C-alpha cells in the first residue's frame, strides 16, 4: 500500500512538471506597462477608452500586497482588471530557500490568480526566508550547483502550487559571491529544467554590471530569446556613501539613459517582449509615469518595425 502511494505521488509530480500550462509568452500581445500604484487609481479609471487601448497598456502589482481577505484593496484591483491586463510579480516567494513554507504562500497566490487571471506571473531568482523568518529583501543566491538545485526545487514548488509556469527575474548584485557559473548560465539552466521563463530586469543588469563588472551586452547575448517573457526597467540611485561605485536598485527615480540604451539592445536581441516601467518610491504623477511608459512603447514600436522590415527583406530574397 505504501509503495503504491509512493508511485502515485511520483506520477503526480511528473505530470505536474510536464503539464504546467505554459505562460512564458502569454504577454506577447502586451505593450509597455506600469507598476500599479493606489495613488493613481482615479487617474487610471478616468482614462478614456482610446487611451486604454493604445498599445495595450497593462499594469503590474506585487502579488503579496493583495494577501488580504477582502476590502478596498481587492476592489481597486478588480476595477483595474475590468479594462486592463494585469501581471502578478511576487517578492516574497523565496524560491531559493525554505520551501516548506511555500505551500501556504502559493495557496494565496493561486487564489488571486483564479480571481484576477493575470497574463503573467513572476518571481525572483533569490532567497528571502530562512528558518521561518522572512527577510523582506531580494537576497542573492550563490551560483553553485547546490543553489541551482535549491532554486529549481523552489520553482517546482511554486509552479505546482499555482498550477502554471512563471517567469523568474535576475537579481541586482552589489557584490559577488563564490560561484561555479555565471548568472545567465544559472538562470537559463533553472528555466530549462523547470519549464519557467525569464523576466529580464534591465535596470538590475545595469546595476550589476556597474557594481560587479559583468558585461551587460554579453550577458543578454547568452539568454535564449524564446525564454524571455517580460522585461523590467526602473530607476536607480547612487549609494549615499560610496557614490557611483555602488548603484542601488531603488525604483525611486526615473529610468536612467544607459538603461534605456540597454533596453533598446535587449529588444534588438529578444524581439517584442512586454516592458514594464517599475516605480515603487518617490511616486511621481500618473502623467509623468505615462510619459516614461510612452518612451518604452516607442522602443517596442521600433522593435516591431524592424522585425516587420526583416521579414519583408527575407520574403524579397526568398
Amino acid at each position, binding site marked *: 500500500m505504501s509503495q503504491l502511494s509512493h508511485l502515485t505521488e511520483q506520477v503526480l509530480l511528473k505530470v505536474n512538471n510536464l503539464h504546467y500550462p505554459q505562460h512564458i509568452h502569454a504577454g506577447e500581445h502586451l505593450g509597455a506597462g506600469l507598476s500599479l500604484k493606489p495613488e493613481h487609481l482615479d487617474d487610471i479609471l478616468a482614462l478614456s477608452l482610446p487611451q486604454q487601448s493604445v498599445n495595450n497598456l497593462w499594469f503590474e502589482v506585487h502579488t*503579496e500586497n493583495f494577501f488580504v481577505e477582502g476590502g478596498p484593496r481587492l476592489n481597486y484591483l478588480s476595477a483595474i482588471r475590468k479594462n486592463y491586463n494585469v501581471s502578478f510579480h511576487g517578492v516574497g516567494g523565496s524560491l531559493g530557500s525554505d520551501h516548506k513554507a511555500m505551500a501556504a504562500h502559493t495557496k494565496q497566490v493561486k487564489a488571486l490568480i483564479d480571481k484576477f487571471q493575470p497574463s503573467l506571473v513572476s518571481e525572483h531568482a533569490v*532567497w*528571502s*526566508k530562512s*528558518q521561518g523568518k522572512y527577510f523582506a529583501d531580494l537576497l542573492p543566491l550563490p551560483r553553485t550547483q547546490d543553489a541551482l538545485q535549491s532554486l529549481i526545487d523552489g520553482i517546482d514548488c511554486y509552479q505546482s502550487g499555482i498550477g502554471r509556469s512563471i517567469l523568474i527575474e535576475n537579481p541586482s548584485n552589489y557584490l559577488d559571491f563564490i560561484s561555479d557559473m555565471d548568472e545567465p548560465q544559472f538562470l537559463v539552466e533553472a528555466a530549462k529544467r523547470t519549464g519557467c521563463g525569464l523576466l529580464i530586469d534591465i535596470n538590475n543588469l545595469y546595476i550589476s554590471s556597474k557594481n560587479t563588472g559583468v558585461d551587460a551586452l554579453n550577458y543578454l547575448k547568452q539568454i535564449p530569446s524564446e525564454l524571455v517573457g517580460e522585461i523590467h526597467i526602473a530607476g536607480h540611485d547612487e549609494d549615499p556613501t560610496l557614490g557611483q561605485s555602488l548603484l542601488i536598485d531603488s525604483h525611486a527615480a526615473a529610468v536612467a539613459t544607459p538603461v534605456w540604451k540597454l533596453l533598446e539592445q535587449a529588444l534588438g536581441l529578444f524581439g517584442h517582449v512586454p516592458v514594464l516601467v517599475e516605480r515603487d518610491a518617490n511616486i511621481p504623477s500618473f502623467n509623468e509615469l505615462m510619459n516614461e511608459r510612452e518612451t518604452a512603447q516607442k522602443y517596442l514600436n521600433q522593435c516591431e518595425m524592424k522585425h516587420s522590415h526583416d521579414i519583408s527583406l527575407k520574403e524579397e530574397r526568398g
Partner: protein
Amino acid sequence: MNTQEYINAFAMYLRHGDSKNIEIFCENPSHINRLAVYRNGFYKSCIDALSANFPMCEKKLLAERFREIARHYVDLFPPEQGTLVGYGANFPKFLENFLSNTGLNNKESLELTKSRKITSNSYADLINIAQLDYAWLKSLMSADSNKILTIEYVTELLEQGIELTELNVRLNPSVLLVQVNEHAFSEWISLKTNNSDNNLSKATSTRFVMLWRIQGTVQARLLAPAEVALMETLLGKSSPLSEAFEAAITIDENFDVSEAFTACLQNELLEIQTN
C-alpha cells in the same frame, strides 16, 4: 559550497550584523561592506511596513523616534510570512513591554523614553493608539460579506410577516471591538483627522470602541455599555436578534432597541445566517 550554510551565515548577518561567517562566501574581500545594502533593505522594508500599519502611533511619536522603536521590534519579531501586509500583530504588546516601567530595566529603552520625557499616562495612550491602528487595518482588510442584512431585505421580511427578532444574525467580519482608554481614542481621532488637541476628551475610563467597514471606509465610535452587550452577543457567532436585544436591555432597561437596529442596518453591521 553548501547553500544552507551560506543562507544561515547571511541570515546571521542580517539579524545581528555579524559578517564573520558570510565573509568566506564573498569573492572580493574589499566589497564586504556592501553587504550592508541587504541589511539596510531588510530593516527599511520592515520598518516602512510598521510605519504604514501604525500611522497614528508614528504621528504621535514622530517619525525618527517611531523608527528607532520599530527597529527594536524588528530585532525581536522579524516577519514570518512572505508578506508585510499585516506585519506587527503584536506591536502594541511589544510597546507595552518596551515602554512600561518594568521594561525600563533595558538601558536602551530607558534612554529612548527619557529623551522623549513620555509620562506613564501617555505610554498607555500610545499603546491604545497602536491597538486602534491595528484594529483599523484589520477591519480594512477583513473579508467582504455577501450576506449583509439590508433595509430592503428587512422590508421584504416584514411584508412576508416574518418576525424579525427570530432572525439569526451576526456581525459582519469587518466589525471589531477594542477596549481602550477614552482619552486615547479621542487622541487617535484627533491625530487621524488632523484636528487640534483642544477637543480631546479628558475622561480616562476604559471604553469599548467599535470599528467597522462600510463602502470601503473604516469607521470607529465609542459604544455605550448596552451597545457593547448587544454587539458582543453577535460577535463571531450567530444568535437570534431577540437574544442580542435582551442582553442590551439587561444592561440598560431604557435601551432603544428600534434605534439600535436601524443604526445596525444603516451601517451594514449585520449579516444573515444562512443554512
